[in-house]
């Protein structure tokens, strides 16, 4: 009980104390159920304070901050290259994808453009981290609604993708590979072929998930019609990524606001689903994972030769100005609003993370659902705690 405050807080505490006596004096009113901060379904330390009427949720209020690390403040006392170290740790499952918008925003302020080879490799690694991130979601969603096996498949196959990322960047989770003006290093020999075979395996994994979960009638019964988010609500809350596309909004920053990466060089499509329920979100992510493997395959065929670093000074000073740049990360739109005063480090960085907006819809969407559905919806909204709390 440390995250909220004042009078409401006190009322809340006393109501909880009353609930604790539930077996002493039989109370037929609502019950408060704390889901988290230590709970298997909260991927870390999110806490949902739910008021229940039987098993039905009356109000669900997410309480976070258990993992707030103050990255916006920390970035202000670091230089631009040092910031990427922190930024890696925002969405720790798709770390490389986090670096890209920050670096691109800094490049935009410096009016530098990375050479084409660097842009291609960036795009490949970006999509690889999407595959790694979404693969875990595909399995984890199974665990959320009780299927044990899919998550093990997910860990098994995600490992292959992480190995590929590690072979290039040296870091499984925190690559810190992107530099202003290009990349830290080039790809090693033989990596392209290996990645291709991994992509084949990831497609098999997607097929397995389709058989294990999507086609499973129990899964459909649990997910269809649960947590429906209409498109206009999704837009108002600023939902992004697959959550938005599952509500039928055809919006993908890779296609609609490509900041110069190689997505426009390959043939792919944006998947949407009209239903807006948990099943639609799962389905869209499954298709996106598969699409990402195809994007990687195509990109691997056409890596242009050339340098991987543009000419940038050794000590990077970003000219004064402001820039907002966002990309379509695995979780949704991740953007960095950088204010520079011509210093070695940013003056202010606003990190717009997808999970923060995606989870802010929880009080709206969880009115009147059952406790098991709370877990389904949380799972299908797919958040990462570091991405909410920053």
């Amino acid at each position, binding site marked *: 009980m440390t995250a909220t405050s004042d009078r409401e807080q006190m009322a809340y505490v006393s109501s909880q104390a009353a609930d604790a006596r539930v077996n002493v004096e039989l109370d037929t009113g609502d019950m408060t159920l704390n889901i988290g901060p230590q709970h298997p379904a909260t991927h870390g330390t999110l806490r949902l304070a739910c008021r229940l009427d039987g098993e039905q949720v009356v109000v669900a209020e997410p309480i976070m901050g258990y993992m707030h690390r103050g990255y916006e403040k920390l970035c202000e006392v670091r230089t631009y290259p040092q910031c990427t170290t922190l930024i890696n740790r925002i969405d720790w499952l798709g770390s490389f994808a986090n670096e890209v918008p920050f670096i691109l925003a800094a490049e935009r302020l410096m009016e530098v453009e990375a050479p084409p080879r660097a842009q291609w490799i960036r795009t490949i690694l970006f999509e690889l981290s999407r595959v790694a991130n979404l693969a875990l979601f595909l399995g984890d969603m199974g665990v959320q609604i009780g299927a044990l096996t899919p998550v093990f498949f997910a860990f098994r196959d995600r490992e292959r993708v992480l190995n590929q990322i590690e072979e290039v960047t040296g870091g499984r989770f925190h690559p810190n590979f992107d530099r202003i003006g290009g990349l830290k290093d080039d790809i090693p020999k033989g990596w392209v072929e290996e990645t291709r075979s991994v992509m084949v395996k990831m497609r098999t994994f997607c097929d397995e998930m389709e058989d294990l979960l999507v086609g499973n009638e129990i899964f459909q019964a649990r997910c269809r019609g649960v947590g429906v988010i209409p498109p206009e609500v999704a837009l108002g809350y600023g939902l992004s990524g697959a959550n938005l596309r599952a509500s039928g909004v055809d919006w993908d920053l890779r296609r609609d606001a490509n900041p110069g990466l190689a997505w426009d060089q390959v043939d792919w499509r944006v998947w949407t689903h009209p239903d807006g329920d948990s099943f639609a979100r799962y389905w869209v992510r499954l298709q996106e994972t598969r699409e990402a493997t195809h994007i990687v395959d195509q990109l691997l065929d056409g890596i242009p030769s050339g340098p991987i670093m543009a000419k940038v000074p050794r000590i990077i000073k970003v000219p*004064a100005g402001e820039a907002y740049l966002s990309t379509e990360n695995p979780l949704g739109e991740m953007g960095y609003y950088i204010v520079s005063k011509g210093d070695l480090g940013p003056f202010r960085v606003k990190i*717009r993370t997808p999970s923060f907006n995606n989870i802010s*819809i929880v009080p709206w969407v969880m009115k009147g659902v059952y406790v098991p559905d709370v877990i389904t919806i949380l799972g299908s909204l797919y958040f990462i705690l570091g991405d909410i709390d920053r």
Partner: protein
Amino acid sequence: MTDEAPAEETALPDEKREALLAHFSESLGESLVESHLQPHEDLWLRVTAESWQDSIRTVKSAGFEYFGFLSAIDWDIAPEGRYEDTEFDSGLEEEDDEPVEIDNSTGHGGGDSRFQILAQLYSLSRQVGLILKTDVGEDMTVETIRDVFPGADWHEREAHEMFGISFRGHPTLQPLYLPTEFEGHPLRKDFPLLARQVKPWPGVVDIEEIPEHLEAQLEAEVMAAFEANGGAS
């Protein structure tokens, strides 16, 4: 690609955003204080604090119905600097003894107050983003836009605890991240970052010089050894 392409791009006028700017200078009227257009990148509009909610409504009705984020900027200069050696701050190679110029600029779209609120909105049909700014006056209060975009709810709570800006009409401005007993507003520039104050910067250490009175003696010793070895070190 690096040589020609950017030149061509900048040469192209950004018609989409220019038309938008013309449209908004008309529909927002006097509420629009200043604007800034970065071709092919972004469009900034600064509106008056009184018209903040109405401007957001106007912009939303013009098709900008996708809410990106809402945040604030503190334009003050941090008293502690970046907690590091000032020499390093100004660059290792350069030798400028000029006093560090205090940069009082307030970014694109300008601004008069210490705090600014900004919101980012998208128009999906135009595929264009837009950043709205407003100054926060002495009373540190602006109207909430929670009624226009429900997603702004949490963003306003965050801005409230991080900068101490109040939002008129917001029912639950309780902290989102910080513990109840936390004092201060961490993202304000005058809020000290303890982690950087409790420990000295290791980079401030310098290499120990040879004491002057020993220099000649050491030099002679080295030369003697050098010659004794027949010139091969």
